[in-house]
């Protein structure tokens, strides 16, 4: 049975889809059979980030409704054999994701895969609930700003009370924090919450810190998950994240500003 990982946040635009693509690609590159599912019905964009948008024929909702079978809808990644993408439906109504339907698809996918990564839509409504309901692990993607941290905390409340594991009194979902769009410069100037600040409030297992980086936009422009760009800080930070998820003990990188010399620091005050 596959392990199900939900990438969630509450707030929109924090980097969930970027992270889902990175997580899935990172796991697959390490040889794990991985599927990544876009739960953002109506706002499909995981396929764009993965660069497979022109190969979409059937989608998640088609499979749930029995209009296509799973193999017809899954798109195999061209760069990595062990990675499959299940795109979201572009047009249907959000209620099309029924709990029963989602459960069936996950069960079938779970037979042939080691990991299933679920890219959650924003919000705390139906779509987000469906994405997290069956999860074993949750990566809570958070930006270092007030509304994102608050929404992450609310999402933690939902994970702890409305998931299958909660309802069946199983061991709770394993929650991890991923801090993204982090700017060490701004933290140093006191303009942005630091990792420690966020950890003091959320106190979760810290899976990684992804720096704010132009490389993310470049990657999404090109349809290549940023985790494949090992030249960039963001790409390397995402690789570290995947390695940590798999149990490696790596120090956090990119938390400090580039060494600029003591004098420039002194003058900046």
């Amino acid at each position, binding site marked *: 049975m596959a392990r199900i990982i939900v990438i969630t946040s509450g707030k929109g635009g924090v980097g969930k889809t970027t992270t889902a693509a990175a997580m899935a690609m990172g796991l697959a590159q390490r040889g794990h059979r991985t599927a990544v599912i876009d739960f953002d019905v109506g706002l499909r964009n995981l396929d764009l980030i993965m660069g497979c948008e022109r190969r979409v024929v059937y989608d998640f909702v088609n499979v749930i409704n029995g209009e296509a079978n799973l193999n017809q809808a899954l798109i195999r990644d061209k760069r990595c054999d062990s990675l499959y993408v299940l795109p979201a439906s572009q047009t249907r109504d959000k209620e099309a994701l029924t709990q029963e339907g989602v459960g069936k698809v996950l069960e079938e996918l779970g037979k042939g895969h080691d990991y299933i990564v679920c890219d959650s839509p924003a919000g705390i409504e139906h779509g987000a609930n469906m994405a997290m309901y069956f999860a074993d692990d949750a990566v809570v993607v958070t930006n270092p700003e007030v509304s994102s941290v608050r929404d992450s905390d609310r999402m933690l409340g939902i994970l702890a009370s409305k998931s299958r594991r909660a309802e069946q009194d199983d061991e709770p979902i394993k929650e991890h924090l991923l801090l993204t769009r982090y700017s060490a410069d701004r933290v140093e100037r006191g303009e942005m919450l630091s990792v420690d*600040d966020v950890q003091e409030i959320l106190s979760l297992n810290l899976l990684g810190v992804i720096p704010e980086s132009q490389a993310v936009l470049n990657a999404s422009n090109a349809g290549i998950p940023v985790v494949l760009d090992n030249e960039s800080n963001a790409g390397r930070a995402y690789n570290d994240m995947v390695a940590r998820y798999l149990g490696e003990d790596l120090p956090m990188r990119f938390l400090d500003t580039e060494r600029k010399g003591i004098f420039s620091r002194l003058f900046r005050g």
Partner: protein
Amino acid sequence: MGLLDVFRSNRNKGSASVAKERLQILVAHDRAYRNRPSYLPKLQQEILEVIRKYVEVDLDAVSVNYEQDDDQEFLELNIVLPDAAGRG
């Protein structure tokens, strides 16, 4: 205090420390709210009914407040009785 600490102390002047303080309050409040037992509204209703058997109180005379800290839960019950003149 080392030189580094002097630099660090500058951080407290930035907006990040305000953000952190606000968040701590906000999140504590959110958590208290979501941890409220679900029976509170019904409890409030039933207490009101019992009181009204004996005293003519307003429908909003009973308020129930739930709070929680690290190791205790508090249920605070407030009942406003009418003026002495109004009592039978």
